[in-house]
């Protein structure tokens, strides 16, 4: 084994589902200082607070150029303060309610449930303002940026959902906004490009590398390195350097908290399984965090087969974090290949790497054809056109025979309007 590869901490709090085992049970100590082997590897419990070094077990950290270290420290300090400040929480809550339309509903899918023999519940993040869960994080970060005195937001975007959300928050708070988007995605998500421009943002097409999400992140980081004095990098997923993976998950925690209550009201209990698609992993982290302490609830993340960082990757470092990464034998990052621009990413958030390593969550992969099928399936049976990203979660539920008779909560992270053009081409 690679000497520098992180090892899973041997400690366990019993939070893993029965029968599951940590996939990498080596007791060797982490080569990195500061890894706290608390409950489930977190000092604050499963999906609690990371270590002061930003570690979730052996993953995470702050692997950024020295120029950005002070900015990360400032964000960490400001976020910690703001998150404990009732005024900040109150303002965010008001925006989430009056502006974004929270709480999002929980919908029971009667026809789909009957067809699959699985009781399917959808957490309807697609009904949020701007059409996806992304708005939760963006409103939080934009308020934080303003609190830190920043006047400009930069963001990366894959499918354009995070870009649209960031452009929206920038318009709302009167901030300047620039969104980096891979040239391939600009092509396949033209509608979202125009939406961002309508909202007053500048969209920069990125021609380097694979010309998708990974390269948009590179370009946004390059912008931030040069503009860090007045710019906040509004990262769109639970990835990047500490504190982003933690902070973004906290801003999305509302998904899981709401869903837990809603499930209890609707069904009188907790779901057997919670399912969400995983690219960087923000919507999954959000909904998982509401159920992580319920050890009998199974957590399943669904990756695209062509971008399965956990399924096909090994630990590596890119974009500021140590996590699972699709890479070659020299450490060059591989290009992901997915039908869905939002999941077209070779890495994954470090907390998911930890949830995988400890066995608290498991990660499955679905193929593009399965996703196309699921996209149609939900549209026809429930009258809900899902985002291609969210269709990954549906695809796994439709495929997985062991779910029969169970209650499954799916995070429907976004709506499919943006994908209709692309699907028209595919289904022609």
């Amino acid at each position, binding site marked *: 084994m*690679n*000497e*520098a*590869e992180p090892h899973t901490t041997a400690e366990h709090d019993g939070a893993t589902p029965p029968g599951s085992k940590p996939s990498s049970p080596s007791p060797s100590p982490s*080569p*990195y*200082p500061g890894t706290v082997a608390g409950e489930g590897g977190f000092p604050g419990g499963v999906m609690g607070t990371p270590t002061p*070094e930003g570690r979730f077990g052996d993953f995470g*950290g*702050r*692997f*950024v*150029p*020295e*120029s*950005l*270290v*002070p*900015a990360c420290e400032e964000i960490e300090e400001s976020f910690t303060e703001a998150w404990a400040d009732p005024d900040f929480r109150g303002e965010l809550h008001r925006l989430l309610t009056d502006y974004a339309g929270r709480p999002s509903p929980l919908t029971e899918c009667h026809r789909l449930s009957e067809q699959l023999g699985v009781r399917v519940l959808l957490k309807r993040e697609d009904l949020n303002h701007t059409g996806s869960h992304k708005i939760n994080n963006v409103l939080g970060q934009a308020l934080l940026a303003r609190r830190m005195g920043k006047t400009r937001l930069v963001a990366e975007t894959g499918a354009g959902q995070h870009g649209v959300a960031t452009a929206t928050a920038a318009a709302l708070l009167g901030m300047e906004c620039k969104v980096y988007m891979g040239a391939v995605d600009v092509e396949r998500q033209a509608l979202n490009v125009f939406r961002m421009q309508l909202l007053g943002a500048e969209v920069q097409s990125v021609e*380097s*590398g694979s010309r998708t999400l*990974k*390269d948009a992140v*590179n370009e946004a*980081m*390059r912008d931030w*390195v*040069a*503009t*860090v*004095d007045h710019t906040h990098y509004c990262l769109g997923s639970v990835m990047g350097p500490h504190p982003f993976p933690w902070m973004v998950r906290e801003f999305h925690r509302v998904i899981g908290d709401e869903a837990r209550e809603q499930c209890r009201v609707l069904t009188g209990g907790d779901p057997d399984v919670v399912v969400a698609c995983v690219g960087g992993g923000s919507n999954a982290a959000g909904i998982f965090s509401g159920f992580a302490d319920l050890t009998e609830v199974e957590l399943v993340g669904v990756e695209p087969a062509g971008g399965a960082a956990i399924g096909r990757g090994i*630990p*590596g*470092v*890119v*974009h*500021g974090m*140590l996590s699972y*990464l699709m*890479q070659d*034998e*020299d*450490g*060059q*990052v591989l290009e992901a290949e997915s039908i869905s621009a939002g999941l077209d990413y070779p890495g994954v958030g470090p907390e998911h790497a930890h949830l995988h390593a400890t066995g608290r969550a498991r990660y499955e992969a679905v193929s593009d054809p399965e996703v196309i099928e699921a996209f149609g399936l939900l549209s026809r049976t429930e009258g809900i056109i899902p985002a291609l990203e969210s269709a990954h979660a549906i695809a796994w539920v439709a495929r997985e025979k062991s779910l029969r008779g169970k209650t499954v909560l799916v995070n429907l992270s976004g709506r499919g309007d943006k994908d209709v053009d692309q699907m028209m081409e595919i289904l022609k």
Partner: protein
Amino acid sequence: MTVVALEATLRERRDRGAKLLVPYITGGLGTDWTDAVRAATDAGADALEIGIPFSDPVMDGPVIQEASDRALKAGATPHRILAELAELDLGIPLAVMTYYNIAFRAGHERFAADLIRAGVGAAILPDLPLCESGPWRGAASDAGVESVLLAAPTTPDGRLGELCEASRGFVYAVGLLGVTGERSSLAASATEIAARCKAVTDRPVLVGVGVSSPGQAAEVVEVADGVIVGTAVVRRLMESGPRGVGELVAEFRRALDA
């Protein structure tokens, strides 16, 4: 392969009153990149930085990105670049510049040993800041590899001393907030960060990022001990080959010696 110690060499030259010149060349860029390495050496480089291209170079601007892309497309790998370097016996210190995942993937101990075997005695990993660098620096030190740390204009005073103390070879003072690339004039931050580093360390302090012309280099070394010249050299290599590199490095040498 003889490893020439970086810090000892730079200190000795500095103490004799020389201003230090460290050109950067992307490894594997063109079939004759090692000729460019020789040309830069012959033209008076005090040490050389050799880039091992990485797929996602977040600290690099368009020119070095393009150079990295070209090299990777031509089949450059860490192994191949080090093997080609091992063939050269230049008599000056060599440092590789690459991103941390290349070292992480190989494993710290193996990567450090591979460097030494190729005659490379130092490494610069721009995405591995002081706070994350402990394990790598430990392994590097055990293998005899000098690990150069970068100090940025945003680095607070409180950490600058610790950073300069932990760095080996020299202190790489990042001349501006931004990625590698040429600028029409020297940023005020270049001499500011050099002065701040010089105030807390006796190690050689070299400014890199945004040092684009011999004139700018001469300005920088009024405060700093030397300069790292990357983009200008790489662009010259792409435009006019190894001979052009030799000419450009000679121009920088003359400006520093004047």
